[in-house]
């Protein structure tokens, strides 16, 4: 970027090209091929790049890693870090991706939808500049629910929701100044998503009555508040689509264990319950894109292995405070490991769900990453990713440990580049997704566009 003007112009184009996306939203999957699924799982409190490193690096490789130099290693030849051991069965689908920066995001304690939207989001709805990448993907792979979001809501801190078990603003965004809403409890999620096919006749009657109430309301609002009438119509349209796939939905409706239906549950159980519902939603075809806030700094963590009776305050852990006999690092390890068991469950279950010649997992990409970068008070220098991709995934990443060139070097990539790659690979030709990082401009490399080497 030679001049600031070119920079601004391209930046404007970058945001402008986004408006092409709606044209693609009507695009059905090509030629009856199954749609791609995307699962975005993000955590609070940062993720240290150092813990992502396989312990089996050679001396040279370790030296390069220490200097944050570029690496591209075959994971098959390496041992996984201890906390990733639950993913052992998926070693060949795994990618550990390091070196992606995200300084254009809000970082720190709370980041709202920054890491998925690639802009500085804050508690004000006005800060939501455009839809987050998961919604953009959802537009390309339409489904009745379009997108489902789950969360372990924060009840404290600077970003509290009022409820653990209800529906509240989530961490993805549907469009400019349009936050998304997430399910806080697995029970509510299951109820809402699967009510049309409930085995309970009362629930089904109620569901039918609901349909009629919506129709009534839509008719009455047509002459009054257009946007409201449109939303009502959108819900009705969705209901019609759900009806059309009633069989599939019925077959895959989640059967939740009693502990996932309780009013009080540990964080760990909540996460597992959410996993059950999100799997059912994906496999039944209700949605193709799921976002899951697996923890957030203001959420008090309960049920962690080794600390079952503790209410872990992740903010304190982020500041190095121990919990019981465990050091802060050990707590972080336990939290991560627990997350990996969730990813294992998801991948294993998707692998068991047949689709086409293979399984649903073949057409899936699972992203696990921190919503605020490389540490608790991060600056967005690095967003480490754990990816699980099926064999039909369009990005050329499986089975590798990749560290991209460091900040300022040629070939360095930001979150914007990563998501652009994702969108380009699946049919959205956007030039660049997300805000630029002004700090990169001075190095003279082009920071816009996809990461070419990942595009097949």
């Amino acid at each position, binding site marked *: 970027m030679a*001049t*600031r*003007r*070119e*920079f*601004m*112009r391209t930046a*404007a184009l970058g945001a402008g090209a986004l408006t092409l996306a709606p044209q693609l939203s009507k695009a059905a999957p090509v030629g009856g091929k199954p749609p791609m699924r995307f699962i975005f799982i993000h955590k609070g409190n940062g993720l240290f790049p150092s813990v992502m490193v396989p312990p089996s690096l050679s001396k040279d490789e370790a030296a390069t890693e220490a200097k944050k130099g570029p690496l591209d290693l075959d994971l098959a030849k390496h041992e996984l870090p201890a906390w990733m051991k639950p993913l052992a069965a998926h070693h060949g689908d795994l990618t550990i991706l390091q070196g992606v920066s995200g*300084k254009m995001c809000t970082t*720190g*304690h709370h980041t709202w939808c920054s890491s998925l939207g690639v802009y500085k989001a804050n*508690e*004000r*709805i*006005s800060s939501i500049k455009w839809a987050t990448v998961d919604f953009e993907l959802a537009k390309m792979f339409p489904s009745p629910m379009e997108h489902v979001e789950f969360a372990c809501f924060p*009840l*404290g*801190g*600077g970003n*509290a929701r*009022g*409820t653990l078990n*209800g*529906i509240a*603003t989530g961490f993805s965004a*549907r469009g400019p100044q*349009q*936050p*998304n*809403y997430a399910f806080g409890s697995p029970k509510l999620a299951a109820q809402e998503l699967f009510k049309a096919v409930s085995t309970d006749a*009362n629930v089904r*009657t*109620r569901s*039918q*009555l609901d349909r*009629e*109430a919506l129709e*009534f*309301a839509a008719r*009455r*609002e047509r002459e*009054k*508040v*257009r946007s*409201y009438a449109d*939303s*009502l119509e*959108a*819900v009705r349209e969705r209901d019609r689509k759900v009806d059309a796939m009633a069989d599939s939905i019925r077959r895959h409706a989640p059967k939740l264990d009693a502990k996932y239906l309780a*009013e009080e549950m540990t964080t760990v159980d909540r996460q597992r319950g959410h996993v059950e519902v999100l799997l059912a939603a994906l496999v039944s075809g209700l949605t193709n894109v799921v976002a899951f806030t697996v923890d957030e700094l203001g959420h*008090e963590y309960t049920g962690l292995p080794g600390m079952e009776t503790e209410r872990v305050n992740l*903010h304190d852990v982020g*500041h190095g405070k121990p919990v019981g006999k465990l050091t802060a690092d050990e707590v972080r390890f336990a939290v991560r490991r627990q997350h990996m068991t969730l990813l294992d469950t998801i991948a294993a279950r998707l692998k068991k769900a047949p689709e086409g010649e293979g399984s649903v997992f073949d057409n899936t990409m699972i992203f696990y990453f921190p919503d605020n970068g490389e540490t608790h*008070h991060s600056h967005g220098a690095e967003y480490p990713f754990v990816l699980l991709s099926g064999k039909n995934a369009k990005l050329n990443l499986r089975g590798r440990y990749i560290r991209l060139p460091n900040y300022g070097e040629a070939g360095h990539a930001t979150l914007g580049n990563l998501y652009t790659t994702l969108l380009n690979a699946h049919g959205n030709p956007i030039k660049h997704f997300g*805000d*630029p*990082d*002004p*700090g990169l*401009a001075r190095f003279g490399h082009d920071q816009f566009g996809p990461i070419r080497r990942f595009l097949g």
Partner: protein
Amino acid sequence: MRSGWGAIAVIGFVVGPAARGAEMPPNVQAVLAKYCAECHGEKPRGGARLDGLAALGPNERLDLLNKVQDQLFFGMMPPPKDDQPTASEAKALADWVRAELRSHKASKLDDRLPYPDAGNYVDHTALFNGTNQEKAFTRGRRWLVSPQIFDERVLDVFQLEGRERDGMRRSGFHGVTNPFVLPDHAGVRYYDLTALDGGHLLVMLTNAEWIATKQLQAARIKAGDPNAGVADPKDKWYPKTTPAPFETIVAKTGPPTDAELADAVQLQFSLVLRRRATDAELVQYLALTRAAIKAAGNAEGLRQMLKSALLESEFVYRLEFGEGKPDEFGRVTLGPREAAYAIAYALGDRGPDAAILKAAADGKLVTKADYEREVRRLLADENWFRGPVDKGLSGMHIASHVVSHPRMVRFFREFFGYPGATKVFKDIPRSGGFYRNPDRGHLGTPGWLIQEADEFVIWQMAKDTAVFENLLTAEDYFVYHNMDTKAGKAQIAQWKDVYETLKKTEWKSKPEEVMEAHQKMLVAAKILDPRTKELWREKRSFLYYMYWFQDTFGQGRTPFTRGPFTHGYTYEHSPSYNLPPTPHRGRYEGVETPRYKEPKVFPAFWDYPVEQPFRVANRKGILTHPAWLVAFSANTASDPIRRGRWIREKLLAGVVPDVPITVDAKVPDDPHRTLRERVNAATRSAACVKCHSRMNDLGYPLEQFDDFGRFRTLEALEHPDNLIKAGNGKDTADVYKTKPLDPTGVLSGTGDAMLDGPVKDSFDLIDRLAKSDRVRQSIIRHAFRFFLGRNERPSDSRSLMDADRAYVTSGGSFKAVVVSLLTSDSFIYRKTVEN
């Protein structure tokens, strides 16, 4: 210099198919050539080239014109040191650019105008110099209710009153989520800018579900219906009685008659929409209900009707379109019913009371005098709007103050923005251990600070004299004010009596004997619990108090009217005001055991002032209140830029452009420089100073207060290189080298020549601001926005001047301002205008 301009000027600005007479007139071209060409021609400064407009594609051209419009509007170009165009030259250029953009519906400035952030875009002088004689009005509008109004409407559906209403208002309903979130920043926030959308719908659906269920629960239980309630066993509450028209239908075994159904529909309409259903609506609703009853029985069918009424958009809207014949200026007045709602919702959240509704029905809410009568009556009514200032503040330890007009207090809360203090996470050790971050169920230290700032505001509003000046300059505050003066004095007297009586006894070595001998006095003072059978069980309480009295009375100081060892005690924030701490409960841990070691050191605990408010040193008004200072600070440092910006926008009616996206807003570290010096260095370049000159110099004086709100003369240079002694990571802060603070600042570009000039320190700054007309008028403008729910326009000039005069002639009464605003043309008249 004028190199390429001549040629381009001849070609003009033919843009192609989109052009609608888009030629730049010669006078406008001349302005560009004279003032802009030098820097924005061949080698364009800031990358903005203004001589090739014609050659640009349509999007790029509009983009550039928007940039030009912004630069002109915010007064950033030409730079202050260069030649400035005359007023008419500037206007010619600005008007042409704006017209161009508007003709393509692409004016970003215009898009921003309705938003609260852009309220100051209207020129201040023009609003208050009396030149504008236009007739004021508000656009007819359908306005989404505020979160608070929504809560009241739900309470109305259940017909809750009195204590039950207060209780449910405080706790909220288990199954009702408020669909509305006001934008989260300092300043007026409740405008008619959003419409119901998909996100709201989801919430409205779940709400309607729950409310409809609860409305029928009592009757269904009576009828032995197993599906009467909700699935959640924790969700126990339901209204004790179901209204008769609903109960009739639920209890009936066969289908209900038309008359019974009509009664039910009319009742629900009155509860939810506060009106009768029209004949057409009745027909629709009857059909709906009948079909549902056929499918699912009386109860479920009725619930369907209840739910549908709750899904009406009207439930969450306020309608203000005006009625009757337009006057000679095309304006109509609010209809009487609309007026009743408009007045009630301006003053509170509860909606109109019976009296104003009757006045409306009787045709007595038509003239300005009518409006004034009702406004004054409702302002004097102590009970209709009574409620807590902010129920979000109430939790485990704090109960938000209950006042007669919480919405009025809310104006100042939003204006000053101090409730934002809860959003800033702090590092506890940095505070020396006293600070508590908000946590589950309580709001910690900022919660208390906000509560105390509220009390300060409430006090000044109650006196209703020189309200603005006092809010800015009063030096008497409320800290740890848990009892009124009379009760507090009585408490202290009683305790002192106990101490004086017992101090010479052997209370330390023989506590039980002393307790027995003086049991009556100790029980009266609530030091001993009379219900306890065995006296020895009360030893701990007795000793707690006595050691505490020794620390306070014994040192000639008055204790706080609550012991630190009492259950739920969380008062630890006096250091925010630089006041000495009160004893910590840990000091008395184990008093009743033999291993208790009496403390040998007697720190100078706070000599608590029972009579409040009281003078606090080095403080002046809200801007030096710790709540405000914390709200406008960062996690680990103060924030002179945001503090300065607040002053510029809220007190000086100024405008500061948004941070450009290319700015990476970080203050560099430097072990040798104070925050002020580092901020200065980072914002000094030509590109930055354009905006920062409007903010920094106003925020620097407030550097006299750190990011916990504490007054200081030295700044700790918090850099690892400067560490003198590390803290213990819990309750002692790290000790750093310090540097003296420079509290000077500058008032410039205020538009008030009397106000501009160098500033000695924050107290000087505040004094001068408080005395200025401009500041007073700026606050009036914000009050206008709050009570009318929109930005002011040039045509509102008369209304604003009237409100200003009302304030001044009444000796600074805020109530007078409110009466003036709610009887102004701006409030009373409506006009349906296309945008």
